[in-house]
């Protein structure tokens, strides 16, 4: 009953299960362990933030969820089915916008539709998502003519045009200046609320995690394992100076090994 209700309320989303995943990279013959027995469940339509120090293996978890790699041990499941290959239902937005420099903004956004062969039926979506990310006036610009924030919005549009059911965000605002970042965080929140997709955000910014996510999962240094999990009950829009968030922030920083007094 409750499951059926959940399905009905989030038809455009996927539940993600990470089940006992460990992952190793072979680099010049030596093994580098990046994930150590990570298990987590993300419900449909949920917004989860993965918080951890740089280089701890958070991005690897996203690559596994996107299907760009398969885990050394364990399994990553989308709606109960193992993920073995990339699928436009689950789209990864990278830290760098990684726009194709030889394509205009419009053509960049069209990439997914072209690749899936649905460009003719769904071309109207391009204009829609460009309006959504406020880039409708820049459709014919090339990547190098955009500012960092605009490029990242274009990358977001390139993902959203495919109506992903799971949006994987790898520190998407990490390289933006702080004002642009605040704006983009609000926009992302807005898109998530109207889109109904599941969102998994990797970040090392405690505040960003607290402002956006329903749940914050803290990862340890490499090899990453789950250290703590914090539910953020506060309704949106959240104020960063509310007592509740300040307290959560302190406890998260402590879990990351940074004492507030130090």
């Amino acid at each position, binding site marked *: 009953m409750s499951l059926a209700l959940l399905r009905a309320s989030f038809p455009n989303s996927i539940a993600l299960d990470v089940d006992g995943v460990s992952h190793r990279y072979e680099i010049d013959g030596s093994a580098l362990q990046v994930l150590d027995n990570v298990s987590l469940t993300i419900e449909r339509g949920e917004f989860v933030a993965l918080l951890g120090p740089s280089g701890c293996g958070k991005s690897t978890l996203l690559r596994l969820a996107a299907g760009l790699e398969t885990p050394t041990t364990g399994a990553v499941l989308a709606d109960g089915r193992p993920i073995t290959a990339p699928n436009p239902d689950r789209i990864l937005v990278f830290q760098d916008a*990684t726009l194709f420099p*030889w394509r205009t903004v419009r053509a960049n956004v069209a990439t997914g539709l072209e*690749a899936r062969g649905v460009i003719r039926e769904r071309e109207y979506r391009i204009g829609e998502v460009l309006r959504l990310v406020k880039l409708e006036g820049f459709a014919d610009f090339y990547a*190098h003519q955009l500012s960092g924030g605009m490029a990242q919005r274009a990358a977001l549009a*390139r993902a959203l045009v495919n109506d992903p059911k799971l949006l994987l965000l790898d520190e998407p605002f990490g390289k933006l200046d702080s004002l642009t970042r605040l704006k983009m965080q609000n926009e992302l929140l807005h898109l998530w609320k109207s889109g109904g997709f599941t969102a998994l955000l990797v970040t090392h910014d405690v505040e960003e995690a607290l402002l956006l996510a329903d749940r914050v999962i803290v990862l340890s240094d490499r090899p990453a394992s789950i250290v703590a999990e914090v539910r953020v009950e506060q309704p949106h829009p959240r104020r960063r100076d509310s007592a509740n968030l300040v307290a959560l922030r302190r406890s998260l920083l402590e879990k990351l090994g940074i004492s507030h007094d130090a």
Partner: protein
Amino acid sequence: MSAAVEESFDEAGRRSVTLPFARIWRSGLLAGGTWLVAAALTYGLPDVISWGATELFAAVVLTGAGILLALSVTVHRLGSVGRTLVHYGPWFVVLGLWFAAWEVVTAKLGWLPKPFFSPPQGLLQAYVTDWERLLICIAYTGRLWGLGFFSGIVVGFAGGVALGWSKRFAYWGMPLLKLIGPVPASAWIPCIFFIFPTTFQASIFLVALASGIPVAILTAAGVSQVNRSFYDVARTLGADNRFLVLKVAIPASLPNVFVGVFMGLYYSFAVLVVAEMLGAKFGLGWYLQFNTAYSAYANVYAALIIMALICAGLVRLLFLVRDRLLGWQRGIL
């Protein structure tokens, strides 16, 4: 001198109305002068060595002088063509001086002897007397070069994409390419004579090889250097391998491909002479060899100038194609 010209251009809007005669293209005027001198020297001094076409050359240079003089007052009305002419003004001046000096030290004083050094009138004589044969040679060379160059870059490009994309292909192909690459064209002659049924096909092969190898090497390098995250992005967006090759790898490596095509263009011209050694009856390369054998160096220089002009024209054309295809690079480079 040129500063004055540019200045008058900058203020064209104001001055053109008030002082139309003050705006004289000084380089043009000077160039007209030097061309006049060249014409006078050619016509006035007797030929110590006979090269022919003395009067004709003097007339041509005189016409040139007249045109330059006329341009020196009208060039400002010619828009962008005018601006290009003004830019090359100093070259026209020097060209006139060069004609004069060249005439004097060869035909007029005989310091540089026949047949090794031809005066400009000797080149003109070659064009006038041999133009029919030269035209036929241009056509033959055009056919050989066109077939060779385009088949070369097509095969080179396809091979380069395969080498850059597939590890297995690169494993076997790259060493072979590195082995074949530096082999001079003439070294191929014995074995291509055996392989190809006709000498024309053998010639095409030589031109294709010369233009294809740089294209293959640079394309392979370009494809293998494509930023991996472009592939990751495309794959998460649902791209299959075909899409990755055609819509990611190839456009990303196109700047490299063009460097290869430019190199191939130059190599293909350099190899024409060798390619036309193989039993060709016409062609610019053949023309060069034939006239070298008869010590008709004026004809050799005349044909070399034609080849240089054609090559420069093709380079120009290729730049246009590149700018069209790589318009997105504007502002990055």
